[in-house]
Structures are given as C-alpha cells and as structure tokens.
C-alpha cells in the first residue's frame, strides 16, 4: 500500500501568540505538527503495519518544516518530502497548496492519502478535498474510523457529533477528525532511526510548476487576536427587578431581543 500523508507545520495554539503589524510573530512562537495531521500520520502508520507498504509524509513550506517531518519519521513514517516554496512564493493559500501537492502526487500512484481535517491555524479544511478533486479521486472528510479490506474501505465519519458510515474504494483521500486514534509520541529508537530515513527536498522547478500558476487567489486583509473577554456583570436587587433589568439590557445593550 502506497500511503501519503499531508502534513502542516503550525503554531502551537497552547502557547501565547503575538500579533504585530498584521502578522503573527514567529520569534519565540512554538511550532508543532498540526494536531489533526498527527491523527493522519498515526492512522497511516497503523494501516502500513497491518497491510504492508510505505508511508511518505509531505509538507509545503520552508526549511524550518524539516523538524516536523523528522518528528513524523520518528513516529514511524518511512520517507519525508519537503516541497520548499520559501524562495518562490511569498504567500500560499488553499488553492496554491492544493495545486502544488496535487502536482507532486499525480504520478505517485497513491493508494491512500491522509490529511488532517483542518489546520488549527488557517482552519479552512479545504486543502485535502481540493487535492482529491485535482487528482480525480474520491475523498471523505472528518473520519473517525478506517477499515481497509482489499480495495474496499469502510469509514465512519463525524457529522456534527453524529456518525455516518460509508463505504468507498481505493484510491482515496481522507481527512482525520479527533477520535480517529491516539497518536503515538516518537520513541527514542524511533528518533534514532529517523536520522537515517530519507528526507527529500523539492522546489517548484522540480515539479515543473511555474510560480505564476500557483499565485495565491486570496489575500489576507487583516489578522487580529480575539477580543479580550471582559468580566461579566452580576445583577442585584429583587428577583423581579433583576429580570426586568436583564430583559432591558438584552434589548438595549446586547441587542438580541
């Protein structure tokens, strides 16, 4: 089984994020593998262990993303590919990312492609489905269970809290939802082995992509942190007065009734 996992390096949202001049400050920020992509990596490793084959993790970005690829290799992936867009593109959007990934994947004869359901930074959830669309293969998003029997794949997917059971055929692209599995952390032997595993670096030229063809189709107008939560207000006095005041405030201040 030829398995690919699409991985994104993201900010660790558990750490403090600083926004200055409309951009997130990279200095001092912690970077991680997008947590939803970790489910995808774990699932890929489990499928490979059960069915045989090879897991290749792929990411787009700069050289810094090597670290996340090494972590994926230490978890158990066999190969890693960094498509380095640092010199060619200032900005990537979902269109550019999907286009580049699809160009890379088109002749790889992938049986199964996994990705995270969304990245916790951009949160668009578009790249996976767009790649499948460009490759002309089926896709299923937000999966919580994956069973492969020959060419047939039985999937449970999360539908806003409910479960939907589907059957599909390989080749297939799926995106992982929380609950799919419990991602392992890299073991020490895993880290040692990862040092010797191949990490290939490609540029747009290597994929015969003209940078004009992958220019972002969207522009980011502004980035800002959510407004700070202000302290709540506790009403006082008789219960009936409090109710009156509450209704009046909901009407005049909150403007919801």
């Amino acid at each position, binding site marked *: 089984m030829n398995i690919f996992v699409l991985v994104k390096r993201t900010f660790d949202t558990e750490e403090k994020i600083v926004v200055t001049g409309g951009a997130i400050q990279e200095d001092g920020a912690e970077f991680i593998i997008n947590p939803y992509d970790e489910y995808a990596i774990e699932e890929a490793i489990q499928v490979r262990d059960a069915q045989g084959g090879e897991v290749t993790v792929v990411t787009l970005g700069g050289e810094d993303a090597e670290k996340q690829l090494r972590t994926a290799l*230490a978890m158990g992936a066999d190969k890693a590919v960094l498509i380095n867009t640092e010199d060619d593109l200032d900005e990537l959007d979902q269109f550019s990312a999907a286009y580049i990934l699809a160009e890379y994947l088109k002749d790889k004869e992938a049986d199964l492609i996994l990705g995270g359901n969304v990245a916790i930074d951009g949160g668009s959830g578009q790249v996976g489905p767009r790649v499948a669309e460009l490759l002309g293969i089926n896709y299923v998003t937000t999966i919580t269970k994956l069973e492969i029997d020959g060419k047939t794949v039985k999937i449970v997917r999360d539908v806003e809290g409910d479960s939907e059971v589907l059957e599909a055929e390989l080749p297939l692209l799926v995106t992982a939802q929380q609950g799919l599995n419990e991602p392992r*952390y*890299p*073991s*020490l032997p*895993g*880290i*040692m082995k990862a040092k010797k595993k191949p990490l290939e670096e490609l540029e747009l030229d290597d994929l015969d992509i003209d940078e004009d063809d992958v220019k972002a189709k969207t522009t980011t107008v502004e980035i800002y942190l959510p407004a700070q939560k202000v302290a709540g207000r506790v009403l006082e006095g008789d219960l009936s007065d409090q109710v009156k005041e509450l209704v009046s405030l909901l009407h005049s201040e909150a403007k919801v009734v």
Partner: protein
Amino acid sequence: MLLADEKVAFLEELRQSVRAVCKAFSDTYWREIDEHQAYPTEFVKALTDAGFLAALIPEEYGGSGLGITEASVILEEINRSGGNSGACHAQMYTMGTILRHGSDNQKRMYLPKIADGSLRLQAFGVTEPNTGTDTTNLKTTAVRQGDHYIVNGQKVFISRTEHSDLMILLVRTTPVEQVTKKSEGLSVLLVDLREAVGNGLEIRPIKTMMNHSTTELFIENLKVPVENLIGEEGKGFRYILDGMNAERILIASECIGDGRWFIERATNYANDRVIFNRPISQNQGIQFPIARAFINIEAADLMRVKAAQLFDEGKSCGAEANMSKLLAADASWEAANVTLQTHGGYGFATEYDIERKFKETRLYQVAPISTNLILSFVGEHVLKMPKSY
C-alpha cells in the same frame, strides 16, 4: 564550549519527545503518588516503552547508544515536567557496571532485557548503617563456598529494591586485615532479588520525608552463584567508582530540571498574584531572589554541559562532574526556597505541588553524595590541600 549545531538540534528533539511522554503525567498524578507513597509504575512503563531508559545501552544490546549528555537531558526534562526521575534514573545507569566490567556472557544475558525493561536493574547496594561514604570499611562479607558466595551483612538507604529484579551489591570478599590497601578486597555481585528475597535477604521499607522507595536490607547466609560476580574478585571498589562521575552529572541534571520547574512556578505565581493592587512580582523583594536563583541554575547548567562533554569524549571529568552536582544541587535548593517563599502560605498546600518538589530537591544536598564530600574532593584533588577527613 559550544555544542555543534546538529547536536543542539538533536537534544532539542530529545527534549520535545521526553516532554511529550511526561505531558500525560500531570501534577495530580505525581501528587497522588506522593500522597500514597506509591511507586509511579505507569510513568516508568511509559518511559521504558518509549526507550528513554535504554539511552545509554549500546545499540548492539538493544539500546540507543547515546552519551551522558543525552541521558542528562532526558532526566532533566522529567524533573522539569514536575515529575521525579528518582523513581527510575538508576535503570538508566546502574547497568554501566555490567557494561564496563561484566563478561560478554553477562552483557548478552542482561543488557537486552534491561534495555526493553523486562528486567529491572535499578538497585545499587553500597551504603551501610555504620560506614556510609566510608565505603571501604563496609562490613558486608561474601565467602566463597564451591559454586556460591555466602553473603552476610546489612545495607541501608538502598532505593527501589522493591521495584527491581536485580541488584548490584558491593561486598568484602577479602578481610580488610589481609589486604595492603583498604580499597582492595571488595567485589561486585549481581543479586537476583526475585530469588534472594525470603532466601537470605529481607527488605524493609524506610519511610522518609519524600517518596523515594528506599529500603533497608538484612542479609543472612544469602547464596549468590559465583557466575554472578562482575569483573574480577577484589576489584569491586574501582568498578563502583567508575560509575560515580556519570551519576554526579545525571543528578546535577535532575537538579537543573527541578530548578527550571521552580522558577517557572515562582514567576507565574508572582505575576498572577495581585496584592495591594499590583502583582507581587513587581516587588524587588520577590523579583530579585527569583532572578538570582534563575541565574544560578543557568550557571550550573554550563558546568553540567562541560562535565557531560568531557565524559562523552572519554576525558577525565571528576572535578567537573562533582562541581556540577554541587552547583546544581545548591541552585535547585535555592530555587525551591525562593519558590516556597514566593507562594507564601499556598506553597505549603499540597495542591500547589511546591512542598512536594521542595522535599524532593532537598535530598540532593545529601544524596547520592553529601555536598561536604564534594568540597573535600575539590579541596584535596583539585586544589591540592590536605585531605580534610
């Protein structure tokens, strides 16, 4: 002395991975273990399964073949996370005696199983009630009878014997009056605790200020097969000394981990705690001691790195290893004190975890070597002053 870039990156990766394992073991976990004076079995298992305790075992025996620098980072991160390496650090380095002085057969028989955790060797029986650091005067004897040694004596403050399958035991095989130097005539035996307990060995737990699973051993006519002798008979004291520098560096690292944990807690609390309409961290009386403790930890870290590098390069590092232990133990104790003071009354409440770590890090002023003996070592061997004891 800077580490090469690649090594720095690898150490960082190592730190992240140890943190990932430790993250699953919260303050609550360690608090409950402490409250019940229990052994952190699940934590030790997770660490073993992830291969971290086999870091120092060569690859040919199933370990990762790393150096003391890497091992020290692993233990530092455990303590940095709020946990306590004391529960399992000996599984990492006690095997060094077998690795350096054991026969090929012993290495093949024991090291792979120690590497995968199926065999626990994390008890080290040296200290005795009446001799302490005066090791060469120890009273436990082993007399050879045919294929066995018959061992008699008593040991004290031997940690983790109830959580270990094997124990390294230092015994006198030649009476002190028959040797020219007191350091001769001591031997190292590998005792299989699973067979020994109830057959000449009695283990009694010692309840202490902190949770450390330490015990007292009563040995009466314990039979140990001759093939369990490590190295040559009579040369055991040197074998034990060989492991000391590694231990000093690793304990220093645990202190540095503790120190960093304390500084983080103290800083966060001081910034959050508002009294008289301002955070207490704005008071120099609070801020400066935290800053000073931090500085001392960073300095101790440099000595630790230096000692570990010398060790890994196979160079003499006795002075540096001992100095790093003293600096780090002093720094972590200072940080502990400052953090307790910063927290005021809350520092004494178990749910803040400060008192637990405070008790744990206090140990390192005394064990595995008392700070005074480091001073006497440096005075005598580095500064060439007269032996002070």
